[in-house]
């Protein structure tokens, strides 16, 4: 049933596949960035094409930049820095991975970063360990080193009620994967922090008219708002009259339906349609398949679980992949 694809270097800490599944970027504990490529389309042989020392500290997360902006990855490092590395031509027939941007960490660390493409630009959301969120915009579509800070805010609905400084362990961001003229850019963000009001997942939408980001929905029931969020995942929508977002907290994986049209106050209707339990402990990652019908999750129990809705809309665990040596 399973087919081995790649053997990873010792000390590999994280990995990420590019948009078409032909390239794998992995980050190592010693700060090395390793790239594997399949030279033939759809071949299952992958070879290492680049091994670059990207940073002094270990790489904890790798994320590919959308392919419209080249072959590039963002690396989050253990010391809290964020790096952008890009593969570019260096001399005839020679491709090389080069550092194109370094976002220094000061007191705060970068916890998660995700790229979102709108029709006109590339946006990058960065979540920091102090509970702040920064949205950067790429100024030149050909140069991945020219970023402009577009907005900075905290993951709270009511900014007046903000109090104190949060200390966050992790954050999870997921963009609405849909790109269309009728849609504003939006993403969902949740924190795992010591300040309850930062934690709950909120949907942020860009208000083009006023050039600002607004929280348009909160994905937590009144009693659960302080729950620490481990992961969020926005499902692709190929034509549903509502969006589906998965939110993993200490209580399980909640599936939310999000309305498409805002009410008079600009809020989107939300409905929690399922609470799935299965993973013992923390949920590490959640990924939707291309149709948005199957959710794959993995967590500290080391099991990959697949969830689907039956014809009545009842979500259930469809399969569990238990790893054995």
């Amino acid at each position: 049933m399973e087919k081995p694809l790649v053997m990873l270097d010792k000390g590999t800490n994280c990995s990420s596949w590019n948009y078409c599944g032909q390239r794998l970027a992995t980050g190592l504990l010693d700060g090395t960035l390793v790239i594997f490529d399949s030279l033939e389309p759809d071949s299952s042989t992958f070879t290492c094409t680049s091994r670059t020392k990207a940073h002094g500290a270990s790489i904890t997360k790798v994320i590919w930049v959308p392919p419209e902006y080249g072959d590039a990855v963002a690396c989050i490092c253990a010391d809290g820095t964020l790096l952008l590395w890009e593969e570019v031509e260096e001399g005839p027939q020679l491709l090389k991975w080069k550092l194109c941007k370094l976002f220094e960490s000061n007191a705060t660390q970068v916890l998660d970063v995700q790229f979102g493409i709108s029709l006109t630009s590339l946006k990058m959301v960065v979540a920091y360990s102090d509970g702040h969120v920064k949205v950067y915009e790429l100024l030149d579509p050909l140069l991945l080193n020219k970023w402009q800070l577009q907005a900075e805010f905290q993951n709270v609905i009511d900014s007046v009620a903000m109090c104190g400084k949060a200390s966050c362990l992790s954050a999870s961001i997921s963009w609405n994967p849909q790109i269309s003229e009728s849609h504003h850019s939006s993403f969902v963000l949740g924190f795992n922090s010591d300040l309850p009001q930062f934690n709950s997942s909120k949907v942020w939408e860009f208000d083009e008219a006023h050039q600002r980001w607004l929280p348009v929905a909160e994905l937590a029931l009144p009693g659960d708002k302080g729950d620490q969020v481990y992961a969020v995942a926005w499902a692709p929508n190929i034509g549903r009259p509502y969006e589906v977002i998965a939110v993993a907290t200490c209580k399980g994986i909640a599936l939310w339906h999000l309305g498409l049209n805002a009410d008079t106050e600009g809020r989107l209707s939300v409905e929690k349609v399922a609470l799935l339990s299965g993973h013992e402990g923390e949920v590490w990652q959640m990924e939707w398949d291309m149709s948005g019908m199957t959710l794959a999750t993995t967590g500290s129990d080391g099991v990959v679980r697949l969830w689907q809705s039956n014809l009545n809309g009842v979500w259930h665990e469809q399969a569990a992949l238990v790893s054995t040596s």
Partner: protein
Amino acid sequence: MPGRMSDPSDSLVPFSPDVRDPVVYSLHHDLKAPISRLSISWSKGNCLRVSFFGKKSSNSSAEGSGNSNDQIGGKVVEVKLSSEDGEIDEAQKRRIAYGSVSPFALLQSRKNSMSLLSKMSMGSSTYHVEWWEHVMEYSKDINLLLGSPKPLPSPVIEDPKTVLKAMEKPTCLKAAWELMEIFYADKQSQAWLPESLVDWLADYDNLLSETGTTVYSKLVDLQKELVTLQAVEDNPKYWEGISSALAVGWLEIVVKLLRLHGSYQLDQLGNRETENGLVEAVAVLISKMPRIRTELAVGRLGECYKTKPDFVKAWEKWRGQITKLECSAFWVQCDHRQTREGLKNVLQIMLGNTNSLNTVTSHWIELYISHFLYVRPFTMGLESMYSLAQKCMQLKPTSSTHRLMGLLLGILGENTEVVLAECSRSFGPWMVAHAVELLTAGSKQAEILLHEERYNLGGISIEELHRLVYAQILSSHALTWQIAPIYLTSCTKQGMGLLEILLYKQPIQHNHLLLKSLEICRLYELDSISSNIMKIAGIHHWKHGKKGSGIFWLQQAQDEVRLNRIAQQLFDFVGKSISDESFKQWEGLIELLGSEARTVGGLEFLHKYRDFKKSLQQVQDGHITDAARQAVESLILLMKNPSTPQRFWLPLLHDSRTGPGIEAEKRGSLVKLLNWSEHPLLNISQTNLLLNKLQELSMAKLHPDFIEADLPPHALNSVRLALATNLGRAFLEE
């Protein structure tokens, strides 16, 4: 709010609160070190890739161990999530997938034109008659793909002792498809459903042998022994085989077996005349069995009656003959006990003795078929067929339900949901996606059920859901993704959405895949995804040193934003390095751009700009006046040309004021085109043109979209001053 999650009124599959437990698979990573973390990613279609990261070993002296496995820190595996039944191999599955595309597409296009016609007030009765035919044609086409026309277990001429013809084992998939065809698509068989099932079992009884004894397996055993037996009639298995085959209506085999009876042998004929007469009488009676059906294939025994009254008449006459034979005095004269008893038992089966039928059949469906043939030939309607099936199942219970039987019971129970669930569970997404066509043709009710749009499914119908699921499976494989669009475009609600995602995920760095994707985009008018794909290709090539193809694809994508940036880069480059060696490389590129008819993003003007630059270069090199004139000509051409982007006007004018060598070391040889020392190079109208352009530029500066050129702040003013001076001199000159 609409669509609560479990509204029992729209409950589809009888849903029990205890959801079926998840299927547990084990994933082998073969890593020595314990796993510290996992990472998952969806690949094409429904392939899932799982990365395992090993824990960093505590002893850092692993280097010396020399074991290569120690250097492996993790592993990535790909998991395919299709249920493997093993009956059909992958290559055959793909062959079926490819083969079913055109029947499916044909049926869809017929459906579309039908619905157009019916909207134009066509008589619905003719519509239906024709529609059945189309569905039947579709079903036959698909059926053909699932296996070649199979030889029946019928006698062959070559070897008189071969009663069972050796044949390739049919697949359950084909058996299931035929079952669906009989009940839903083939309207002609509706009146003769029992006889259709008789034929069906004759073809597929051997599939049921996997789970237990069947008539077929009995005959296979008998066949093995027949070769070695001298006097077959002495062996009880011979008579058992005859009775069993007769019970399920395999008349040809029965007659052939009977004729292997020892009394037929020439040397025996004299002393076993009566015995032989009885055997032959039974054989003749069997071959004359009345059947209520339209026709029988060549070589098949029995007599067909199309109408019930005719059949009843023939049936009664036939039964009369059997009774008469049973009461005949000849039996007393038959010395061979086994023959006597065996033949009597055969007669009991023909008379529909339920005890005999029960004894000679093994599987419940065999008993069921024997009831149709000998007890209740007039069984009509699914309801009575269903209750008979249940009765037979009680008489012959099985420990586990064969997947074909599960499907048959669903069909007989007239439960579309169960049929669909059985199709999906036992035969996979291909079966469901294609069999839905048969189901919807089968009944209005099923059609409503399968076409109803459901909120729970995201606003799509069950039919569409199954097509999407199937298309996603097609997308998983490099050899089948190209046919997924056929199924996706038949999905009115969400098919295009999925198709766009599918196309977006194709690796564009491979040219043939890029062209294939673009072709699909063009076919289905997916302009935005097409330009996005070209954009990705353009950037990929541009950044990877293939500047020419990069620009080509960006132009195809009409991506003005990126092309403008590229134009700027080239402009800056041409401006800086006219004397540079590497200019040659750029010159070629600009040449390429200039010749391209459909240029976007102002790249065309670079061509002329190069000429201008060349002239300026010559001015610098000392070919003074002629070159200067030429440079001015080029400048005027550039400024007049509507394709020169406005944002380059000022840099161009600024260039001509200062000459190309803005660098410090070249300042001494600055060519002041605009302040040419000998005489003004621009006449009044030319100067006015440039002044007007300058004025336009000043106005444009107020516009919010204006892009400021990267020039010193006084550039505009110094150019204006130079032009004004030139204008004054030109006046004096003229």
